[in-house]
């Protein structure tokens, strides 16, 4: 059980809240590359309404949604060679917020020099547009390995989920759910559908799990039935990257699950895949982006694959899980460690310190640990993941299967 006050502190992400102040010390994906075009689009991040655009010179800008003039939305606007022009009265703003033009004002007026739009720094990396909403100077955008490899294919799935981001992050330090939600429940759905065999890999029982706070967040280890501490699931493990990502995969298939708080009750979930067989992948001309559906044609939540099962588990906890009514046990110690880490880092920010995973020095790449042979076998994990995860919606799924050349598993 967590008190109502602690639950509020853990889950509120708006400006001025302890968690909101912590999260504003990080760069967040605010859009996929295809969203930043000459057509301005509305985005929402950490409870703030924003407008994203790419002007005629190619500069990407992120401004507060409402024009400083008469408060009309700036997505009702036109991108010019430099900046974004409000559609209402033509005031024009640069990507850094300067008011460049006020067409209705006298030609000799200096009024525009005293007007600024709220503007946030943005950077593009690995097919995502990252934004920083915190105090300046901004830290370096972390160049995590998956974002910068030059010999990998990528695809990006995404969906807006109607729940707070913390309950999604808690799933990433909850190893036992794999054997039950995906192993037992997933196989149960297969039984109902007439499939003879349960899913492999995810049905393996956990013998023990461990969590440790380290420089990138929380490192998660597990020993599965029939395995030992010599297996990479224990020796290497994989990380929850603080404060907002899970790194998961196996050799050649490495992914980030990025949980971006839209506001207190909604999360933009990004499934960021890299495909990098031994020897590297051939060049990729562009990174495909696709939406992950939440419901079927009858409006029922899709639950017949791993990520769909996760999504329903997260959403059905409520918009903000009421942790005053939960009953945690020993199997939830990873969840407790994550909550404590958030509390500790909120306090660090309140004391004026940089929180965990803040990078102030330029760097080429940040390599993260991840087991190659996940759940005992890289091939078996790839066979499962390319068929039973959100990858099934990827427009390049068939090419990815060819890229790895793994045999078709018997359980399909």
């Amino acid at each position, binding site marked *: 059980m967590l008190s109502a*006050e602690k639950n509020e502190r853990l889950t509120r992400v708006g400006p001025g809240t302890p968690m909101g102040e912590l999260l504003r010390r990080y760069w967040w994906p605010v859009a996929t590359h295809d969203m930043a075009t000459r057509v301005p689009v509305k985005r929402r991040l950490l409870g703030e309404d924003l407008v994203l655009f790419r002007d005629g010179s190619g500069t990407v800008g992120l401004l507060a949604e409402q024009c400083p003039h008469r408060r009309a939305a700036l997505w009702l606007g036109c991108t010019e060679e430099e900046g974004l022009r409000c559609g209402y009265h033509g005031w024009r703003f640069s990507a850094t917020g300067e008011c460049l033009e006020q067409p209705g004002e006298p030609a000799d007026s200096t009024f525009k020099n005293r007007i600024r739009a709220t503007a946030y720094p943005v950077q593009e990396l690995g097919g995502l547009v990252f934004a920083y909403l915190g105090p300046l100077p901004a830290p370096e955008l972390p160049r995590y390995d998956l974002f910068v490899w030059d010999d990998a294919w990528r695809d990006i799935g995404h969906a807006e989920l109607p729940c707070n981001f913390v309950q999604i992050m808690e799933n990433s330090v909850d190893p036992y759910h794999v054997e039950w939600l995906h192993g037992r429940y997933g196989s149960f759905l297969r039984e109902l559908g007439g499939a003879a065999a349960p899913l492999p890999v995810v049905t393996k029982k956990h013998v023990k799990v461990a969590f440790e706070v380290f420089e990138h967040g929380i490192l998660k280890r597990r020993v599965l039935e029939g395995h030992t501490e010599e297996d990479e699931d224990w020796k290497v493990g994989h990380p929850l990257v603080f404060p907002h990502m899970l790194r998961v995969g196996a050799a050649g298939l490495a992914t980030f699950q990025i949980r971006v708080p839209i506001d207190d009750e909604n999360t933009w979930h990004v499934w960021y895949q890299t495909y990098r067989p031994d020897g590297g992948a051939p060049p990729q001309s562009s990174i495909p982006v696709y939406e992950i559906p939440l419901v079927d044609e009858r409006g029922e939540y899709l639950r017949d694959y791993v990520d769909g099962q996760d999504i329903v588990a997260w959403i059905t906890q409520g918009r903000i899980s009421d942790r005053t009514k939960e009953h945690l*046990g020993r199997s939830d*110690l990873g969840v407790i460690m994550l909550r*404590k880490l958030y509390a500790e880092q909120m306090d660090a920010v309140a004391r004026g310190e940089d929180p965990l995973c803040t990078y102030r020095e330029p760097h080429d790449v940040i390599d993260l640990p991840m087991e190659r042979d996940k759940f005992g076998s890289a091939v078996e994990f790839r066979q499962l993941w390319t068929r039973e995860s959100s990858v099934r919606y990827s427009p390049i799924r068939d090419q990815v299967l060819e890229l790895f050349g793994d045999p078709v598993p018997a359980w399909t």
Partner: protein
Amino acid sequence: MRFCPGCGAALGEAAFVQEYWVAADRHVVCWCPACSVMCTVVLAAALVGTEPEH
């Protein structure tokens, strides 16, 4: 838990206090921002001793 078992400071707004269960025992994880101690207070349903061989 209202006070840190380590330093006695009040476990206020910034502290972390989380209850979980182990069988009939209530465990309360406490992290104190004043002294940085993290500890678990066990509210035991029973105290079980082990009798050495004799």
